[in-house]
């Protein structure tokens, strides 16, 4: 790879312009109604951000209704029932439809530009995630207008959420609507992890990577291990609600605490999942306005990675009051205190950077300092409630409401407002106004503190959360009124921001390029913006290339770096190695398509129909969704390029096709399967959880024939199932081996055999609990065995589809010996299936024998 010479010889301006024109044509958005088929990260990221922002406003209105109700004692502004809907939706919307999605939205918008990449590796997956989010979000929020919103609180504890008298269809809407969105989050996590690790510009070694990318990498990994347990929990709760499988019913061997575990194994890391990407933006803003490199880069990496790990050891601190053994509470209390260390470290690093530089107090910086002040206050009360005895006093009181809003608004909302002001010119080429920005900040900062500071006191004076009204004279009246006033001042601040954002700015001149004089790559963006992400993919040798690298912007603009043109008329981006970012592939990424939207509509339909218990419709819609996804894979992935390699500029030639760990698809499969395995682990956790609470497990039960007998799954059928599954795996691996060695016909035959045997494995695993006469509604044990069997069987069925897909690709000439991405990825899927089947066998068949 040659480097650019200094001074660089002049280039022919006509040639440069022709390149730019070609590039723009390849990347521009479709016109008219086809605009909505676009998958470019700049468009999808923008829709995603605006939609999430819309949900923020919706959730905010719900909060104002609640504060209005609570302004005076014995108020009858809303009914108790409606108030329940309000607080449930407020929490759910803010967490699931704003906080988590906006991180994905902003990352999809920013990450490729921060990494000077043309796009993320799977643009259609981003689009699919967006459409899932939009459909699920509208479905969940819409329920309020039919008086059908969930009422169980944002954590939806059973038995409140399983009792037919207290929980209507709202709970189903919540469970299915949000599960659907969680799938989109996992899709985003896959995209972002691979984006950070494989799509950095050449030369951006891991020690030069912008901190935002570090945080996003950590958060992607956290999503992968945090969201699946909730999906497992959602599955169990919905099975109980829809089919009376008693996972959470103590009368039939269930336990509501299992839900709390599965929910909070998700719920606590989730707090950091939304905090870290927001603080990541702070890590981008602070150096810009201190006009110097960040101080303590390594320490901030420590904070991001350390928080990512420790945050998984905190979930029980939401469950201190449930009567768990005190030694267990001790472990979680200890971890909850320990997480304050990395959290504090990064804040000290930001403060140090500000002290070492000459801080320019612009509007974004104002929001950053406000965020840090509020977050530190929330962190301090966090250290208090992490202590068990104090938590027992404050539990479920307004003290907790105050604490969580200080952490979430300080740690997430204020940084997001900072990001809004900071990145507005990046997106629109125009700045937001300074004066209204300053006014908005002070309204928000004052309003927030007036609203939430008194709540600490209200809580300590004993006011519980989630009450729709309260009697006069308990000392809460004045404090509540102050909180309500504060909430409206805060809302006024939001209104100022929204007006400034939405007002027409046609006559406002464009801002200068890189208006804040920042040092990071996203500010290469042209004014007005261009669709291509970056004019040419640069070679990086500094953490702040715009500050440090000589003639950098000019060289990028003159197309002197990589991929300056798109000769073949295809969208292309670079793939590099994870540690040192050495270029290894020129990746063709797919262009606009309606398929992701169609797939999201059908998959969404299957969830929505299931809510109303229209199961045949749900199955039909789900099958159409699977068909859409297969069509998407068929036409849009693992395409065999017209030539093996391509010259990408600066004397470098890169392959256009890469299968196995060198390719991005393999990593996507691997990461998805890690998440999937985590969901399976959640179900296995449920099995052993029931084992710990029952003296005999499998239990002695009165079965339908009224004979009390030890029920159990037996060994024969599960053994047959696992043996067939392992055979299916072995044949898949054999097919991959044969195909790669050119034995195409033999490989096809082996694939046919593999699919037949794997289908038999699916049947055997499902037949096992049936043959044993296990009645899933009788007790939590048979229900758990059934759900594990169904889970594994469904996965094997997907494996069969993958095997047949490979066969079809081979027959169609879309998969060859040298171009075997599909086959390699299918084999990887089956590695996981072999392990899953073996674990399943050990858990449901062997473990009971060891009792």
């Amino acid at each position, binding site marked *: 790879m040659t480097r650019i010479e200094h001074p660089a010889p002049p280039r022919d301006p006509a040639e440069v312009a022709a390149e730019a024109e070609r590039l723009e044509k390849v990347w521009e958005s479709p016109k008219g109604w086809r605009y909505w088929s676009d998958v470019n990260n700049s468009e999808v990221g923008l829709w995603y951000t605006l939609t999430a922002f819309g949900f923020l406003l919706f959730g905010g209105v719900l909060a104002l209704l609640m504060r209005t109700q609570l302004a005076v004692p014995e108020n009858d502004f809303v009914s108790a029932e409606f108030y329940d809907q309000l607080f449930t939706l407020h929490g759910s919307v803010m967490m699931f439809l704003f906080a988590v999605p906006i991180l994905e939205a902003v990352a999809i918008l920013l990450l490729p530009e921060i990494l000077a990449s043309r796009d993320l590796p799977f643009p259609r997956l981003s689009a699919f995630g967006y459409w899932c989010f939009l459909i699920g979000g509208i479905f969940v929020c819409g329920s309020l207008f039919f008086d059908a919103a969930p009422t169980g609180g944002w954590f939806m504890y059973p038995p409140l959420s399983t009792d037919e008298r207290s929980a209507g269809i709202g709970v189903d809407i919540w469970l299915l609507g949000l599960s659907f969105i969680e799938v989109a989050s996992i899709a985003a996590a896959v995209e972002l992890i691979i984006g950070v690790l494989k799509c950095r510009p050449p030369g951006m070694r891991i*020690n030069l990577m912008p901190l935002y990318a570090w945080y996003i990498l950590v958060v992607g990994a956290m999503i992968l291990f945090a969201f699946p347990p909730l999906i497992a929990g959602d599955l169990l709760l919905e099975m109980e609600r829809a089919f009376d499988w008693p996972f959470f019913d103590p009368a039939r061997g269930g336990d509501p605490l299992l839900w709390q575990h599965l929910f909070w194994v998700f719920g606590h890391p989730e707090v950091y999942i939304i905090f870290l990407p927001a603080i990541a933006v702070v890590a981008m803003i602070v150096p810009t306005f201190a006009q110097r490199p960040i101080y303590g*880069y390594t320490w901030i*990496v420590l904070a991001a990675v*350390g928080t990512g790990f420790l945050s998984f*050891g905190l979930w029980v601190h939401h469950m201190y009051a449930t009567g768990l*053994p005190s030694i267990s509470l001790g472990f979680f209390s200890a*971890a909850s205190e*320990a997480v304050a260390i990395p959290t504090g470290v990064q804040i000290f690093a930001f403060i140090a950077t500000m002290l070492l530089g000459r801080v320019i107090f612009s509007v974004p910086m104002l929001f950053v300092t406000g965020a840090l002040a509020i977050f530190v206050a929330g962190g301090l009360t966090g250290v208090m409630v992490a202590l068990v005895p104090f938590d027992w006093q404050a539990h479920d009181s307004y003290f907790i409401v105050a604490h969580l809003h200080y952490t979430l608004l300080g740690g997430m909302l204020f940084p997001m407002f900072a990001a809004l002001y900071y990145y507005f010119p990046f997106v629109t080429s125009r700045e937001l106004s300074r004066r209204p920005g300053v006014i908005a900040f002070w309204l928000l900062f004052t309003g927030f503190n007036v609203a939430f500071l008194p709540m600490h006191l209200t809580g300590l004076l004993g006011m519980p959360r989630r009450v729709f009204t309260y009697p006069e004279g308990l000392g809460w009246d004045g404090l509540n009124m102050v909180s309500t006033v504060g909430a409206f001042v805060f809302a006024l601040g939001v209104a100022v921001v929204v007006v400034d954002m939405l007002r027409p700015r046609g006559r406002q001149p464009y801002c200068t390029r890189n208006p804040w004089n920042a040092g990071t790559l996203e500010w290469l963006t042209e004014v007005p913006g261009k669709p291509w992400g970056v004019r040419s993919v640069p070679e990086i*040798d500094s953490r702040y290339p715009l500050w440090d690298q000589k003639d950098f912007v000019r060289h990028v603009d003159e197309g002197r770096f990589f991929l300056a043109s798109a000769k073949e008329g295809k969208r292309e981006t670079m793939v590099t190695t994870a*540690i040192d970012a050495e270029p290894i592939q020129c990746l063709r990424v797919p262009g606009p398509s309606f398929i992701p939207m169609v797939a999201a509509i059908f998959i969404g339909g299957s969830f929505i129909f299931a809510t109303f218990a229209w199961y045949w419709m749900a199955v039909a819609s789900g099958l159409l969704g699977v068909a859409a996804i297969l069509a998407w894979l068929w036409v849009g992935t693992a395409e065999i390029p017209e030539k093996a390699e391509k010259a990408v500029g600066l004397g470098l030639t890169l392959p256009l096709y890469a299968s196995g760990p060198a390719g991005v698809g393999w990593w996507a499969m691997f990461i998805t399967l890690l998440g999937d395995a985590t969901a399976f682990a959640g179900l296995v956790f449920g099995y052993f959880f029931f084992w710990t609470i029952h003296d005999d497990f499998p239990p002695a039960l009165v079965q339908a024939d009224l004979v009390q007998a030890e029920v159990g799954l037996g060994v024969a059928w599960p053994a047959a199932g696992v043996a067939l599954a392992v055979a299916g795996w072995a044949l898949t691996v054999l097919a991959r081996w044969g195909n790669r060695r050119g034995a195409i016909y033999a490989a096809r035959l082996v694939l046919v055999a593999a699919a037949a045997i794997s289908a038999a494995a699916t049947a055997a695993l499902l037949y096992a609990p049936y043959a044993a006469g296990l009645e899933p509604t009788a007790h939590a044990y048979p229900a758990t065995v059934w759900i594990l069997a169904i889970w594994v069987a469904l996965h094997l069925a997907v494996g069969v589809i993958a095997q047949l897909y490979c066969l079809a690709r081979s027959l169609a000439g879309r998969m060859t010996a040298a171009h075997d991405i599909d086959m390699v990825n299918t084999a990887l899927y089956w590695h996981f299936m072999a392990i899953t089947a073996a674990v399943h066998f050990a858990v449901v068949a062997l473990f009971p024998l060891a009792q």
Partner: protein
Amino acid sequence: MTPRKDSLWELIAGPTIWSVYFLVAYVAAAIVCAKGGDMDSLRIAILGLAVAALGAIGFAGFDAWRRWRRGHEAAPPHDDDTAMSRHQFLALATLLLCGLSFVATLYVALPAAIFASCR
């Protein structure tokens, strides 16, 4: 001296050991408290395991410190475009994460030293 190949797995050695320790301690305590078992042996086991975990984290940290010190750059920020700078950055980050994991492991072991029963 050219640094050897680095991997991100080394970076998370410390926190991974902490995670395994935390999980084992939590699961062991949950089973003993639910199913019945000798509390004293549980506490000794958890504390013994803590010593092992601290030893492993200490070793990983010491190894990282050695790698960091052997580099050319005396001090951070390790922001040069060289393999050595990258190597030293990763070694230092590993060292810091081991320090955090060491403290977190000590914290988590404390309850086993204090609580004598499941109540």
